[in-house]
């Protein structure tokens, strides 16, 4: 740690008003929310991203309710590739003559929802498997971790594409589960390593001695201590999952026809003439993806710093 940081830490410790109780000095530990708030105030870029993200998410979710399905399914070749601003289309129209603004909102809603579901599935399995392997250790742990080591090096993008193209009755949910299959291993590793160290703590031993069941210790006692770690991991994975879904949709193996995705919108640019001469067709979704993904990773880093006292700025 640099000298500057050390003095900062000292100042912040001194800055707190010590509370004197029975002769002992008690420095109150700031609550998680207060820490997060302070980190945001220290990091202006992250604060701005958080505000932008909040505005974008709320707009997309509410606006999407008012977009009729026909707006994304109707084809009107006559209005193909209208330039922005013509005939009341603020961002122009795409190859099928659909309004780009409506497409963007509907696609963003789908992409965000899918990524959200994948994150939930990934975190759910990741946390449970991580807790079990880290807590019980032994042979089960060895086997599961070997499997994960193996799983992580597999060319997952190719395997997902193969699965997507051979699954019968393909829809959003099959896509979510297929990506989810590859979304939990990193979380398991992270949670396991933390649980390994938690399981040796005194509170766990005390609880064991007093006869708590393993289930109780794992989910009621260790899990709450992992909360901040899980929040960080979920946020960063969420951005990653948006990336995976849009990449697959871009390549043509993501969301099925009729369910627009940001990736599908960008895939209009695989046509060289569209890419070169009609940037208004593919640039808006590209900017949207950049804003969302980078914004989320900024916010995620703030959560990470708030969770890990050594990295804090404030």
């Amino acid at each position: 740690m640099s000298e500057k940081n050390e003095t900062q830490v000292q100042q912040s410790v001194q800055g707190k008003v010590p509370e004197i109780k029975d002769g002992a000095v008690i420095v109150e530990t700031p609550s998680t929310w207060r820490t997060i708030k302070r980190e945001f105030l220290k990091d202006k870029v992250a604060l701005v991203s958080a505000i932008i993200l909040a505005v974008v998410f709320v707009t997309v979710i509410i606006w999407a309710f008012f977009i009729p399905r026909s707006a994304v399914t109707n084809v009107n070749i006559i209005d193909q590739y209208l330039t922005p601003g013509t005939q009341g289309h603020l961002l122009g129209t795409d190859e099928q003559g659909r309004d780009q603004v409506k497409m963007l909102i509907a696609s963003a809603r789908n992409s965000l929802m899918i990524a959200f579901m994948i994150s939930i599935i990934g975190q759910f399995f990741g946390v449970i498997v991580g807790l079990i392997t880290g807590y019980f250790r032994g042979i089960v742990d060895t086997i599961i971790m070997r499997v994960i080591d193996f799983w992580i090096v597999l060319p997952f993008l190719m395997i997902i594409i193969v699965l997507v193209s051979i699954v019968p009755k393909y829809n959003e949910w099959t896509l979510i589960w297929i990506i989810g299959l590859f979304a939990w291993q990193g979380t398991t590793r992270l949670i396991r390593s933390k649980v390994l160290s938690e399981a040796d703590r005194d509170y766990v031993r005390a609880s064991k001695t007093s006869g708590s069941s393993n289930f109780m210790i794992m989910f009621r006692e260790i899990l709450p201590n992992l909360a901040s770690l899980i929040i960080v991991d979920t946020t960063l994975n969420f951005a990653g999952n948006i990336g995976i879904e849009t990449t697959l949709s871009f390549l043509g193996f993501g969301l099925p026809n009729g369910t627009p995705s940001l990736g599908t919108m960008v895939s209009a640019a695989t046509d060289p003439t569209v890419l070169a001469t009609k940037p208004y067709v593919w640039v808006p979704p590209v900017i949207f993806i950049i804003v969302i993904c980078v914004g989320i990773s900024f916010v995620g880093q703030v959560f990470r710093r708030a969770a890990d006292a050594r990295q804090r700025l404030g």
Partner: protein
Amino acid sequence: MWKTIIRRVLIMIPQIVILSALVFILAKLMPGDPFSGTIGPNTDPKQIEALKRAAGLFDPWYVQYWHWIVNLFHGNLGQSYTLKQPVVTVLGNRIGNTVWLSLLSLIVSYAVAIPLGMTAGRFDGSRRDRAITIFNYFTFGLPTFVVFLLGLYIFGYQLNWFPTSGTISINASGFFEETASRFYHMILPGILAGVLGTTSTVQYLRSEIIDAKSQDYVRTARSKGVPTNKVYSRHIFRNSLLPIAAFAGFQITGLIGGSVVIEQVFSYPGMGQLFITAITSRDYSVVTAIVLFTGILALFGSLLSDIILSLVDPRIRIE
């Protein structure tokens, strides 16, 4: 030391067996069989049936798996339905392009990441460090295809600095000119992929250097009067670089796995593009071969990384 390496290599065997079984299952799930491509309007269904029987498609799965493995070892990966060529030939034509592109990306990636990581680690907390960290968030958070498209649009179509597709221009003749043209076609995708691949190296190098700063050997060097620049370039750099070198194996597999996206965007005829074409035209013997090949390559990459890592850091040797 040798024991560790041998143990690690032995772990590879079950891994390859599992991988081959996985790929075999995937291959069996794919519709179609090696004769789908040969069926014409005049073929007799009975004849096809006989051919299938002769090829063992009605055998139990373990017999089929065994035959498949034996064929693999003979380098026989079947016939491409659409290209009417042996899969090995088809793959052979494309592999070179992917390997060269990945190699260039790898070089660019280290050339960019090492100075950035060094600067960020040495001046941690400074404005430069902050800028590098922000750059890192970008490379970490952005889906690669977005960057590739923007790069292609700006540098390929708008500024006309680089060719927009293919591996070689039609006019190139003679060895020297051809090599130059190939390299010219690789520059843009290579640089973009390389820059996007810097995230983990920068992050790792930065934290390694920050850790090393407070180590005893650094303090000793400083108190001996070694100039600061030299402390960083000789003492800290060497120690921090070794683990980075060890991750090269993972980097390579990551790049080859990621070739699907970059080759699709840049219409670069390598394995990734072949994979996409094969899967859209339902040419499943090619798809199977590519997945198997990439998987084995990935396993070798992690083997390589583990071996280098155990050479460098005795603490992580397998017991």
